[in-house]
C-alpha cells in the first residue's frame, strides 16, 4: 500500500485509519455530562467517533479524560519546507578543533549564559561545561575554543559587556523558562542591544532551549537556534563554519 504523501493521516494499525490519542482536563464536574463534553470537544478538533476511555475526578470541579478518535484532517507532506541550521554536516570534537586550527587560525571566543530571569543552567552547562553531556565534551574542553559560561540570571547588558571585553566571536543564550513568552522579549532585547552597539555583524548569536527551534531563532534575529537534544558538537560545527564564512567576506577578524 503506497502512502499518499499529499494527504497524510495519523496511523494506528491500518493506513488511513487516522488513529489519535489525546488527554486533557475540563473545568467541569465529573459525570456523564462531562464525558459528553469531552466527546463534543474532540469532535470539534476533527476527531470522528471520539471514545472517552478513561475519565477521572480531579476535585474542585475538574475532570480528566483520555480520548481516542479518528482524525479527519490530512496534511500535504510534499509541500513542507523547514529551515535547518546549516552546519555543513556535524563534525566531531577532533575535527572541530582541527578546523579551527587550520581554517580559522586562532582561538574561537565563545560566551554563554542563561539570560534575564532564567535560573536554569542545565542547557548551557550541557553545551559548555568541561564534562559536557551524553558523552560529548562541552566547549570548555575544546583546546581551540575559549569558552566562558557566565551562569544564570545574567542581564543582557552584562553579557554584551563581557562580549566586548573579551572580543567574543559568538554568544550562546540558553532559555529554559518560557512561561508567558518571557524568553521572546529577552532574546529580542539582546539582538536590539547588539544592534544598538553596532556589534551585530561582529557576533554570531545563537540561542537554545527546550522550546527553541531554528526557525524561531531566525525570526528573532539570531543566526541559529538549537532545540532539545543538541550537543556541543552541533553548536560548535555551526559556529566554526559560520565564522569561516564571515571571515572570507570580511578580513577584519582574520589572523594577522
Amino acid at each position, binding site marked *: 500500500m503506497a502512502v499518499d504523501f499529499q494527504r497524510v493521516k495519523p496511523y494506528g494499525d491500518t493506513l488511513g485509519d487516522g488513529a489519535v490519542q489525546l*488527554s486533557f*482536563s475540563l473545568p467541569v464536574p465529573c459525570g456523564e455530562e462531562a464525558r459528553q463534553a469531552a466527546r463534543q470537544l474532540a469532535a470539534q478538533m476533527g476527531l470522528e467517533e471520539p471514545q472517552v476511555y478513561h475519565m*477521572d475526578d480531579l476535585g474542585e470541579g475538574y475532570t*480528566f479524560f483520555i480520548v481516542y478518535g479518528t482524525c479527519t484532517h490530512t496534511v500535504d507532506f510534499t509541500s513542507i519546507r523547514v529551515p535547518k541550521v546549516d552546519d555543513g554536516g556535524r563534525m566531531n570534537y577532533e575535527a572541530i578543533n582541527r578546523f579551527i586550527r587550520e581554517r580559522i587560525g586562532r582561538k574561537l571566543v565563545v560566551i554563554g549564559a542563561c539570560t534575564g530571569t532564567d535560573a536554569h543552567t542545565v542547557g548551557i*552547562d550541557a553545551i559548555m561545561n568541561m*564534562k559536557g553531556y551524553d558523552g560529548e565534551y562541552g566547549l570548555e574542553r575544546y583546546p581551540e575554543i575559549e569558552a566562558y559560561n557566565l551562569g*544564570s*540570571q545574567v542581564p543582557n547588558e552584562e553579557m554584551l559587556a563581557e562580549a566586548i571585553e573579551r572580543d567574543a566571536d559568538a554568544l550562546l543564550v540558553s532559555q529554559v523558562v518560557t512561561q*508567558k513568552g518571557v524568553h521572546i522579549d529577552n532574546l529580542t532585547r539582546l539582538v536590539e542591544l547588539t544592534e544598538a552597539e553596532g556589534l551585530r555583524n561582529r557576533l554570531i548569536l545563537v540561542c537554545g532551549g527546550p522550546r527553541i527551534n531554528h526557525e524561531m531563532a531566525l525570526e528573532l534575529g539570531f543566526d541559529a537556534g538549537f532545540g*532539545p537534544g543538541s550537543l556541543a558538537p552541533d553548536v560548535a560545527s555551526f559556529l566554526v563554519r559560520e565564522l569561516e564564512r564571515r571571515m572570507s567576506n570580511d578580513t577584519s577578524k582574520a589572523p594577522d
Partner: protein
Amino acid sequence: MREKLRLDQGQIDRGRKAAARIAADVNRELEKKTTVAVERTVLRLLGIDGVDTEGVPLPNVVVDHLLEQGRLSAGAASWVVNAALHENITPQQVAERVAAGSLSLTEIPQVEWASLLREGERLAAQGLERIAANRREREEQIRRLGEGRKPYLYVIVATGDIYEDIIQGKSAARQGADIVAVIRSTGQSLIDYVPYGATREGFGGTYATQENFRLMRQGLDEVGEEVGRYIRLCNYCSGLCMPEIAAMGAMERLDVMLNDALYGILFRDINMQRTLIDQAFSRLINGYAGIMINTGEDNYLTTADAVEAAHTVLASQFINEQFALLAGLPPEQMGLGHAFEINPELEDGFLLELAQAQLSRQIFPEAPLKYMPPTKHMTGNIFKGHVQDAMFNLVSILTGQGVQLLGMMTEAMHTPHIHDRKLAIENAQYIFNNARHLGEEIQFVSGGRVEARAREVLDRAVGMLEEVERIGLFTALERGMLADVKRSPTGGKGLSGVLEKDENYYNPLEAELKRRVGLDPREEGSVHGRGLPTR
C-alpha cells in the same frame, strides 16, 4: 533489625566528625557577623510589616536607614526597641515614622540599657509566641485529622497566580497529595526584599509573600478538613531573603521549607558568607517552628553525572546535617535531599539508585529523607517518563524515604498541569501500596553489587569531607570541589549586606530562640550595662 547493607560504622563516624569540624569552623568565623537579611528578620519578628508609599517593605526601610548612618552593626533591634521605649510606641509605629521621615533612630536619646533589654526580651517572646502557637495548632490538627503515611506525597504548584495555585493545591490534596509546594517566581532568590501582598503575576512560579503564604495555608486547611488529612505547605527558604522567608513561614504555619546551606552559593552565586550566616538564623527559626527543612543535594546531579558525583551528594548531606544541628534543628526535621538521576540507559542503574537511597537511609536513620525524581533524563517521551517515575517510586518504598517529590511525566516540558499531578499521585499510590512492606523482606547480598556500591560512595564521601576539613569549606568552595563550581569568599551577590557585629551587638530574637531550642546563647551578659554605641 539487621541493617540491609553492612557498612563500616567507623567510616560513617569519620565522615560525620569531619563534617562537624567543617561546620564548626565556619560557624566560629561567621558568628562575628550579621547580614541585612538577618536584621530585617529580627524586625519582622518584632512585629514590623507592611510597605512604605513606594512599596518598599518597612523592614528594608528601617535597615537601610540604619545602614546609611553606619549604625546597623549594633543590631537593628537595639535602635528600634530604644525608639519604641523612648517614644512609647510599638516597633511597627517606629518603622512607619522612619518611613515617613519623621523619626531618625540614631538621634533619639538612649533609654536605660536594662530596660531596653527587658523590652527587647518581652517583644521577642511576643513574636515567638505566635510561632509557638502555630506549632501547637499544627500538632493539634494532625492529632485530630491524621496525616498521610510516609513517604509523603509532595507535589508542586507553579502558576504564578496565588489564586490559581490554591485551586491546583486543593485539587492535588483531594487527589492524595500530602505536601503542596508553591514554586517561587524565577528570580526571586536574587532580590533583596520580600514582595508584599497577594500576587497574581510570576514567571515559572509565584512570589513568596507573607500574604500568599496565608492564603495558601487557608486553602489547604479548608481542603484538609474535607479530606480528613493534614496537608502540609512548603515554600523556598533560600536566596537573599532566606531568614525573612523562614520568619514569614513560621508566622503563617508553613510546614516544610527548602533550606540548604550551600545551594545559594553554588547555584545562585550568592556570596558564601551571606548565605551561611543567613542559613544559620533561618534554621534556628525553622527548628523552633517545627518546620521540616529540605536540603538541595539533588542539584549536584543536574549537570554532574549521578554515578560519578554520588559521593558529593552524601558529603553535602553530612555537612547540611551538621549545620542544622549547630542551629538547633533536630534530625526529625532534616529532610536531607538526594535524587534519582542516573542515566536510564545504564545497565544495573536501578541497583546503583537503590544503593544510594539505602545508604542515605542507614546513615541518617532519623531524618525524613527528601527524594527527588528523575529530571535530567526526562525527555518529553511522557510514556517512558511515567515508567522512570515508577522505578523511582519503587526505590523509595523499598528504602523508606520520608518525602517523595513526585516525578511528573511532563518534567522538562512545562510546569505541571492539573492531570499530570493526578497521574503522578496515582503512580506513587499504586506502587507504595502494592510494595508497602517489600523493604522488610529484603537483605542485600553480602559483598554484592549494591553493598559494594554503597561502600564505595561512602568511602569517597569520607575522603572528600576530610579533604574539605583540612583546607576549610571556604577554600574548598574556591577550588570548585563542590559541584565543580568555583566561588570566592568575597565574590557573588549580597556581600555588601554582610556586616561585622559591634562588640555590643544586640539581637533579642537570636538569644531567645537559642534559649528555647536549648542552644547556649552567646554571652549576652557581657554587653549588659554597656549601652548603645557612643555617638
